[in-house]
């Protein structure tokens, strides 16, 4: 008997793991066609708001593109321009440098926080963990605005320093110190998030390992270096990938704290792409940059995820 969805109950009853081969494609489709309706809304939105724009950006990157009017085809000109754009190259190097420094510092502190919090018990563990996690869920713009008010000339930091008799100049106004402000703010924002992953990793280590080590007379340091750190390798690699990528795409902190300045000292790729596209309306070059940037970001993400899987699938 046909149901309202057009599928017979007998077909429903087939085990889903039944072998399928090309000759049975029609039969599979008869059984599974409604799945397309389930993915349709998400797929439609993804096509319109992710896949189409991504393809379109790559397309635009081959044109001297304008929002209105004629956009002449320009071949690889936008890409050639990147090769001679020293600011782009400096920005690329600076972005990687910032990403590495922030990631290493945030992971070190996140690991330390996890070790410390893991030693607490009950409600104190819950409270401290929540407190340290809060910057990770707060809006980056709000956090940056608060830090900006601290860092400004005559801001909280300068006044506090003056109280203790220390000379303090505004970090945000100096090309040497502005990157440091971005680094400190980003590390502060990411430590809690990283800590949570390490905490989960720590809880997955069987307590018996430590008990056995204790019986054998291993010191806490031995336990840290020979049990905890080796067994957290997988967590560490995962966190490394995620954090590096996040920091490669760093934007809001730079946008709201320094706008890329002073003297481009905090300009990151994402910020440069935004400026080129939205401030100067150079859509072609901005799209070429976005394409290069995305190839690197997606490439690293896929490579490292594959590496992670290859290494740990046992």
């Amino acid at each position, binding site marked *: 008997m046909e149901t309202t969805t057009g599928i017979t109950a007998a077909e429903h009853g087939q085990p889903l793991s039944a072998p399928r081969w090309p000759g049975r494609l029609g039969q599979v489709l008869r059984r599974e066609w409604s799945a397309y309706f389930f993915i349709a809304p*998400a797929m439609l939105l*993804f096509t319109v708001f992710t896949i189409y724009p991504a393809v379109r950006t790559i397309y635009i990157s081959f044109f001297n593109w304008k929002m209105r009017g004629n956009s002449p085809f320009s071949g690889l000109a936008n890409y050639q321009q990147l090769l001679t754009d020293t600011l782009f190259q400096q920005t690329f190097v600076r972005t990687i440098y910032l990403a590495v420094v922030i990631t290493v510092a945030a992971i070190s502190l996140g690991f330390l926080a996890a070790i410390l919090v893991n030693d607490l018990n009950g409600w104190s563990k819950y409270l*401290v963990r929540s407190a340290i996690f809060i910057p990770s869920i707060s809006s980056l713009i709000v956090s940056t605005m*608060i830090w900006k008010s601290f860092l400004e000339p005559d801001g909280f930091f300068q006044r506090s320093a003056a109280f203790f008799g220390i000379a303090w100049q505004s970090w945000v106004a100096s090309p040497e110190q502005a990157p440091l402000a971005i680094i400190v703010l980003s590390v502060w924002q990411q430590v809690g998030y990283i800590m949570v992953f390490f905490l989960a990793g720590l809880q997955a280590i069987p307590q018996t390992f430590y008990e056995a080590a204790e019986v054998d007379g291993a010191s806490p340091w031995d336990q840290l270096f020979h049990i905890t750190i080796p067994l957290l390798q997988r967590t560490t690699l995962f966190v490394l990938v995620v954090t590096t990528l996040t920091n490669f795409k760093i934007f809001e902190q730079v946008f709201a704290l320094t706008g890329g300045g002073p003297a481009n000292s905090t300009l990151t790729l994402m910020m440069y792409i935004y400026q080129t596209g939205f401030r100067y309306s150079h859509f072609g070059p901005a799209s070429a940059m976005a394409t290069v940037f995305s190839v690197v970001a*997606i490439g690293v993400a896929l490579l490292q995820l594959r590496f992670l899987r290859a290494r740990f699938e046992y």
Partner: protein
Amino acid sequence: MLIRKHSTTWIIIRNVLLLVFVLVTLFPFYYAVLNSFRTIRGLPDMSWLPDHLTLNNWVSAFGSNSPVPRWLFNSIVVTLSITTLSVCFDSLAGYAFARRHFPGRNFFFFGIVIFGLTVPAALLIIPIYGMMADAQLINTYPALILPAASSLGTFMMTQAISEIPIDLDEAARLDGATDFDIFWRVVLPLIKPALAAVFIVLFLAHWNNFLYPLIVTNQENMRTLTVGLYLMAPSDRTFGLPPPWDWITVSIAIQFIPVLIVFLIGQDYFTKGMALTGMK
């Protein structure tokens, strides 16, 4: 140096370090929320103690010539709509990916989830702006709400639905349930905690979103809180005029406090959500 676990030295070091962590983490938020309740004498010259308390900033920020109430309204409308839609669409797609063996399943999963999770916003913003401008949707709610499907949400729903035993689907199917019945009456009731987790994760992401609302709006009355807040801050755009500190401090507080409340209420779900991303 050898510090024994549970020795007094270790406990002192641990507690001091944790105190530093917690103070550094929480102080900026404490200070920001406190400032919204203080007389503004130029933000910088304030101590960290609660002095000069007043409600004037809040009265002013919710007064008739302030843009803050409109931004708050926009943020609430946009965040709730987009999050609700996204949870619906993501769970529908998650059901198909977790349970159905339709031709092209891996292709679509790659398109929605893997590509969506890895593609940087940089690759999307220029054409999205162009599309919205062509469709005359700049400064409208549809522009802010339409991109309501999330790779992360779909991935989490797929994970959550994979975890429930398939026997239940099979049993319902033998009883003559349609595919939608199975989704609605069997699967959804079993993944309520995951739905809450996805809702909370996406709610926070959309409430905090900045770049997208920035590019699809350019009128003051269509800004969301994060964007409006950013635009009020002292910068080269404000031409040296004194920034409206009363509105800024209150905006920071009303942007942050809901985040804090949602997180504290839903913390267990949030942690569950992180676990669902398979990243533990």
